[in-house]
């Protein structure tokens, strides 16, 4: 009985497999092309150019947003989700689809494909690691505009993709000033997830800001290898406190744990991603938080009007204090920040709004080599790629890589 059933199934399967192989012969020739597009969309970029009737995302009626974490993480994803809802509010005629917990792998491809099947012609891929799948999907759907939040496309940029981000290190630099003024042990702590260029730029900016008002300030760094593992965050925070760190900050997606750990330990905390001052009424210094609504809405408006290709969003768009409204804004001050510190920060805000960044040379790396040469005032687009090492004053090593 069993064997007979099995044999019947086997026969059927072989037939299916055989048909499959036949198909595959013809598909094999086609496959490399598709795969090429999948992996290195940048280099096989479409000529793009003029916005024709098929301008990507033109007249979009549906927009998709994907988030790597839960949309209520009190951090990065929640801010992006809030941005998506601002788009929905400002465009009542447009349907906004959202998907949370979308991993940074092939699953993201699938979810974006589903959104496109549901009619989406603009997609926001909001996590750093969503870039590969975003490029893959974009290559297969030239009619869909896909923008990715925070990563950087290398090489040629296809007509329907782009990245966007704030110059996150700018408010972090300003917060570093407050941290440098607040510390009494001269030891600052920084809990981060992965040694990606964005994070390294943040850590460097934080230390540079602190050193501006407190030459003895050092930043101790610990990575958790996870965007959100609360227990690892708790342990990282206590390790830093054990080293005498009295002001802590972080680059994590979910931010509540470290904020509360600092408050309970009587330490000070600089926020990231979200205003968490309510969690640390005493220890809150200041921080940085997202205000995505304007950027998202502008991307949507530009694209819906048919102007995506060739626009500033069809590139690695970075907006900072110098050339526009940074979507990453400074959070409010806590009770311990003095007026003098606030004034100093206001001054520095003016300075970097003129020079364009806190990374004005000369800046030395940990090992004494030059990271930014004297007179070097790097453009936004170059800052992340040039932050290849920790600056002097950062204590800790970048994990091998």
């Amino acid at each position, binding site marked *: 009985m069993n064997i007979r*059933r099995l044999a019947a199934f086997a026969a059927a399967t072989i037939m299916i497999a055989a048909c499959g192989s036949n198909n595959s012969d013809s598909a094999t020739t086609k496959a490399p092309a598709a795969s090429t597009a999948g992996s290195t969309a940048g280099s096989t970029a479409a000529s793009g150019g003029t916005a024709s009737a098929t301008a990507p995302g033109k007249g979009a009626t549906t927009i998709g947003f994907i988030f790597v974490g839960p949309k209520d993480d009190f951090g990065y994803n929640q801010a992006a989700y809030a941005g998506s809802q601002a788009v929905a509010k400002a465009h009542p005629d447009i349907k906004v689809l959202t998907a949370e917990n979308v991993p940074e792998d092939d699953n993201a491809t699938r979810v974006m494909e589903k959104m496109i099947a549901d009619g989406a012609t603009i997609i926001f891929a909001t996590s750093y690691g969503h870039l590969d799948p975003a490029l893959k999907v974009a290559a297969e759907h030239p009619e869909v505009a896909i923008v990715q939040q925070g990563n950087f496309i290398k090489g040629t940029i296809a007509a329907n993709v782009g990245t966007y981000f704030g110059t996150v290190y700018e408010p972090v630099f300003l917060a570093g000033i407050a941290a440098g003024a607040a510390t009494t042990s001269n030891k600052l702590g920084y809990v981060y997830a992965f040694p990606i260029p964005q994070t390294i730029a943040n850590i460097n900016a934080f230390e540079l800001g602190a050193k501006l008002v407190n030459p003895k300030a050092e930043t101790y760094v610990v990575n958790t290898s996870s965007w959100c593992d609360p227990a690892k965050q708790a342990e990282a925070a206590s390790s830093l406190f054990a080293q005498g760190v009295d002001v802590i900050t972080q680059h994590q997606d979910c931010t509540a744990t470290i904020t509360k750990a600092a408050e309970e330990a009587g330490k000070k905390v600089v926020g990231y991603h979200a205003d968490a001052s309510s969690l640390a009424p005493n220890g809150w210094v200041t921080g940085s938080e997202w205000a995505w609504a304007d950027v998202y809405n502008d991307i949507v408006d530009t694209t819906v009007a048919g102007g995506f290709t060739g626009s500033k969003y069809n590139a690695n768009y970075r907006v900072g204090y110098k050339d526009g409204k940074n979507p990453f804004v400074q959070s409010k001050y806590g009770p311990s920040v003095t007026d003098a510190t606030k004034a100093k920060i206001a001054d520095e805000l003016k300075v970097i709004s003129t020079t364009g960044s806190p990374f004005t040379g000369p800046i030395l790396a940990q090992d004494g080599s030059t990271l930014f040469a004297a007179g070097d005032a790097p453009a936004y687009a170059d800052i992340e790629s040039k932050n290849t090492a920790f600056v002097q004053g950062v204590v800790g090593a970048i994990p091998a890589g």
Partner: protein
Amino acid sequence: MTAIVEGLPAPQREREKFDVREWFDKLSGIARIAVSLIGALIIFGVIMRLKGANPLTAYHDMLSSTFKSWDSMGDILVRATPIILAALAVSVPARAGLINVGGEGQLLMGGVAGMGTSLALGTRLPGTVTLVLMILAAALAGAAWAALAAVLRQFMGISESVTTLLLNYVALDIMFFLIYDRWKDRSGSGQPTSRALPVGQRLPLLFGRVHEGILLAVGAAVIIGLIFAFTSWGFRLRVVGGNAEAARRSGLKVGALLISAMAVGGALAGIGGLTQLAGAEFKLRSGFVAGYGYIGFLASWLGRHRPGYVVLSALLLSTIVIGGDSLQIDSQLPAASVNVLMAVTLLMVFGFGRKKAVSA
């Protein structure tokens, strides 16, 4: 939840419900599974209602969006490919009475070996040749990883279910170690990944996003089915699985059979990891095959370790995963809903899909 609490074996209640149970016990296999699945849908419908969604609309959206296009149905096959192979990796040892909880680790080792082969050979050889070597390497790595557990059982008396589970974590740390360090793509974006496989070393596409891995998976199921049915090795495995002591007395080399069963299972999972690498991901990254090994384990149990049913089970679970996209995109339910749906479905089928059987 309520349904489960009501089912508690309080003596009086048991008598009251006796009729229902008798009726249920008389149903044939297929009907029982159908009733179990419907029960699962009802329970999950109640949960959706609690979260403010309309279950009927949600189910409708799920079905219509999943089976709307060849592409989304293709996604089921893409998702099912590594799960089928991971499930077969459980089925083969299970025939010999072994429990392989290590599909996750074996998938990972397959992916690691495949990537390692590609990195070592570069583009020296033609892509297809490299791809074949990668498949072999993946099979060997998966086999070795699984056989390690069988050897420890054979010579040290340590349960393979314990060691395979522990080895999952070791495998994960090995992959992490490599992609954070030796294999990290220096020209990449900073997140830990290996470099992408060169185009020629990828599995060709059949249609849409469906790659030839599905042929490997289904082909493997067919071959395993034939081996079970027609070879003496398949027969011996079943004898060992039935009564190892008797098998030993009748002169079978039990140890060799157990180790070979585990190795074959591991090889299948290794290939499964490779299909995911060379067919869908092209890079090793931190979430590589995360959870597929465990879902494969469940698929094997759902299909009662019979290759044909195992394939169907893997397809069912993949369909739930793909359908889960609709739950959040169309019905605005949290992403985690799909876990509840999958759990409720499996519990119902495990618990009620057959007559109370002896647990293995």
